[in-house]
């Protein structure tokens, strides 16, 4: 087992290092930025009071617990530290369990004289090690910028515990699903559910009289991310007890996974396989049909995310607005959260949520373009291109599917928001919700065009650069203000240029410029793709 563990560690060391160091740097950078921006207690008290009255802010950040420097940082960023740890753990666990099994490596290992559960045990051990490293690095990140060590250790432990819980969850998902893709979908979906439960539970929480503390409602207590939030590092009610829940979940889920792996056949899952179609449907005949078919399930997943965001925007707008309506300073502060034009509070709130929808749409689109690359690596492109399909046509198909994915995600989010507004008594906001969703389209297009260009010129870097661009765009767009980055750097992100719609004075120019750039870059990439070799 230790040999297997060493082999797995060797395969993953750089990747895990990036995740862990990235999270540590994020912790240190946010803490130091916050110390500059809200250096004194009065400033922090003001911002926390503002937050505890705004359900949307509680949802996308967390719950405040006192106005010390550390507690404010924890409120601002813990959810995202936990999210990174959870995703790292999920992908790592599935990669070594169901991923190996699907690729046939598990068969090779299973033929050697080791126990059936050894490989999974080695993976879980690797998960523990990675999350212990996460604890150390995050703690060090916070301590390095001068925050009290005790709280830093609590914050590190809470982050690692969230990761550990999802090692167990992912190990279990890997036993249920037959493919690593399905296992990642289940476990990754549960990370999303954990995020949403915490968001809803915290948003509906009750604030204390001074506005510096918020008590969450029960949905937060169903979420491993929520348990971490309840650690309230640096806060008045700081406690490690909630982490017992995370550890218990990890142990239980991991144990059930080990029992299952001992009992089931290699390659089988608990979700059975039905006989499929003997012939292809009319829509599958042709290269575009294939590109769409391969992306369909992914688009549905991203669109479900869009629907949830839409429900969120429509359902939480009223209480959020009610909370800030009478407070002029607060209103101004909320408007400061989103750039680009002046708009009513309502519109600002919806726009803040729709900015996330834009990121989902860009993610769906990048995945569609990147599919072209994974098809090439997996040897599928060789089969496709040996038919009467040119490389240019194959890339065009990917771009069109990406475009369809963007429209599907934006439509799902916009419609969900609009319909929710109708349901809560704002029928007039239906059209504006759709507009607020579709204004995100040009920024997402930029990512499509950029990844298509990378695919055509630097095929080996497509996947890394594709997701890397989205991450940078997301961080610059969402955290650029918090991290006090200079304007020119924030302007690198397409998301920064999306205006608030509908607003009083909407500047449409950036949208047109982004769309024009995207079309031009895509138009250049397509013939370029024709000029390169197939690279596997």
């Amino acid at each position, binding site marked *: 087992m230790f040999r297997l563990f060493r082999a797995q560690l060797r395969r993953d060391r750089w990747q895990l290092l990036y995740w862990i160091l990235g999270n540590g740097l994020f912790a240190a950078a946010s803490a130091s930025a916050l110390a500059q921006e809200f250096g004194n207690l009065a400033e922090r008290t003001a911002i926390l009071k503002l937050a505890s009255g705004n359900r949307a802010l509680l949802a996308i950040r967390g719950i405040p617990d006192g106005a010390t420097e550390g507690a404010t940082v924890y409120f601002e960023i813990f959810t995202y530290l936990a999210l990174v740890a959870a995703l790292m753990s999920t992908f790592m666990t599935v990669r070594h369990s169901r991923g190996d099994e*699907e690729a046939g490596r598990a068969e090779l290992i299973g033929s050697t004289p080791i126990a059936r559960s050894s490989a999974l045990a080695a993976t879980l051990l690797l998960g523990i090690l990675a999350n212990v490293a996460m604890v150390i690095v995050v703690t060090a990140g916070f301590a390095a910028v001068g925050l009290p060590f005790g709280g830093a250790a609590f914050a590190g432990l809470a982050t690692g515990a969230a990761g550990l819980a999802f090692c167990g969850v992912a190990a279990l998902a890997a036993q249920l699903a*037959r*493919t690593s893709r399905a296992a990642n979908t289940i476990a990754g979906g549960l990370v999303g559910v954990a995020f949403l439960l915490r968001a809803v539970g915290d948003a509906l929480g009750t604030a204390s009289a001074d506005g510096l503390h918020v008590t969450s409602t029960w949905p937060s207590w169903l979420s491993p991310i929520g348990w971490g939030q309840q650690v309230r590092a640096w806060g008045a009610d700081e406690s490690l007890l909630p982490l017992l829940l995370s550890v218990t979940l990890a142990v239980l889920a991991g144990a059930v996974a080990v029992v299952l792996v001992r009992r089931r056949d290699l390659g089988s899952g608990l979700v059975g*396989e039905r*006989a*499929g*179609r*003997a*012939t*292809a*449907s009319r829509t*599958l*005949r*042709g*290269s575009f*049909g*294939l590109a769409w*078919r*391969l992306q369909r*399930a992914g688009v549905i997943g991203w669109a479900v995310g869009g629907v949830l965001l839409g429900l969120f925007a429509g359902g939480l707008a009223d209480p959020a607005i009610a909370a800030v309506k009478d407070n002029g300073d607060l209103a101004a502060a909320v408007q400061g959260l989103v750039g680009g034009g002046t708009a009513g509070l309502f519109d600002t709130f919806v726009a803040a949520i729709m900015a996330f929808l834009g990121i989902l749409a860009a993610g769906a689109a990048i995945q569609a373009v990147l599919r072209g690359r994974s098809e090439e690596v*997996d*040897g*599928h492109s*060789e*089969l*496709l*291109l*040996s*038919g*009467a*399909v*040119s490389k240019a*046509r194959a890339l065009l198909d990917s771009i069109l599917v990406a475009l369809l994915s963007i429209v599907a995600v934006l439509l799902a989010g916009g419609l969900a928001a609009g319909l929710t507004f109708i349901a809560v008594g704002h029928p007039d906001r239906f059209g504006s919700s759709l507009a607020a969703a579709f204004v995100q389209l040009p920024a997402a297009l930029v990512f499509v065009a950029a990844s298509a260009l990378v695919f055509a010129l630097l095929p080996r870097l497509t996947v890394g650069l594709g997701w890397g661009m989205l991450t940078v765009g997301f961080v610059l767009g969402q955290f650029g203000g918090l991290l006090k980055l200079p304007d020119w750097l924030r302007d690198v992100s397409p998301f920064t240029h999306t205006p608030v719609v509908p607003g009083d004075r909407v500047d449409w120019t950036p949208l047109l410029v982004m769309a024009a750039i995207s079309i031009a870059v895509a138009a250049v990439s397509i013939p370029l793709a024709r000029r390169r*070799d*197939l690279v596997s």
Partner: protein
Amino acid sequence: MTELIEASGLVKTFGRVRALDGLDLSVASGEVHGFLGPNGAGKSTTIRVLLGLIRASGGSVSVLGLDPWGDAVQAHRDIAYVPGDVNLWPSLTGGEAIDLLTSLRGGAAAGLRADLIEEFEFDPRKKARSYSKGNRQKVALIAAFARPASLYILDEPTSGLDPVMEAVFRRQITRVKKDGATVLLSSHILSEVEELCDRVTIIRSGKTVETGTLSELRHLTRTSFAVVTGADAATIGSLPGVHDVHTQADKLVFDVDTDSLQPVLAALASSGVQGLTVAPPSLEDLFLRHYGADLSRLEFEKEPA
């Protein structure tokens, strides 16, 4: 006879590696052409150049009279291809993959598709991820044969197939040849090539080392004799064209150049033969003669001088 594939001085470099180094290949219309070489000789690279999936770094190449890189789409309408390593879309069923692949060339002939599925004893309703290597190979073969093409490019098409399915494959080759199609068959299964191919090209390290009909190539190789005879080894060994004489139990074993068969047979006839086994020159011998030399040289180089 027109040449359907004409490549001369083909060069392909990947960074510093020279995968093809002046390779020549010419395949005439209507023939089944064997394409032989050990692993890593450049067979698959050549085929990828012929399909326009990668671009030759040097030399000239034409397929069906077209430039395979520039006119790839037009050429592919008439080409059926079976890759050496068939990677299918895991979420598609075998039947869907067959229809998809044939649709890219214009669609399967319905009767042919059904016959092939039956002949290859293939279950098209399973998802591709559950197919074994042999079954994945069947998907590519059925898709290739289900729509008539003028050129079939097959890269080690029978790897993973059992002997019964290999026989089905041979019948299909015979059928498409009768219809006037041309086949380029890359293989290292020599019996398959001997049975099916009109001409063969043998490559090594990205270069063509031999090309011609099987009888032309056999001319270059030797016939093996195992004789129970009164004649002693030295006498036989002194005859021109006789090689590697040694005794094996009561037999005298040696090889004879094709040109020298007549005088050797005459000498044997007068020496009192009690038992005789003659093995015809096989492609295998030819193959080993080309690559065996490499092997012995490699072993030689390992010895300290």
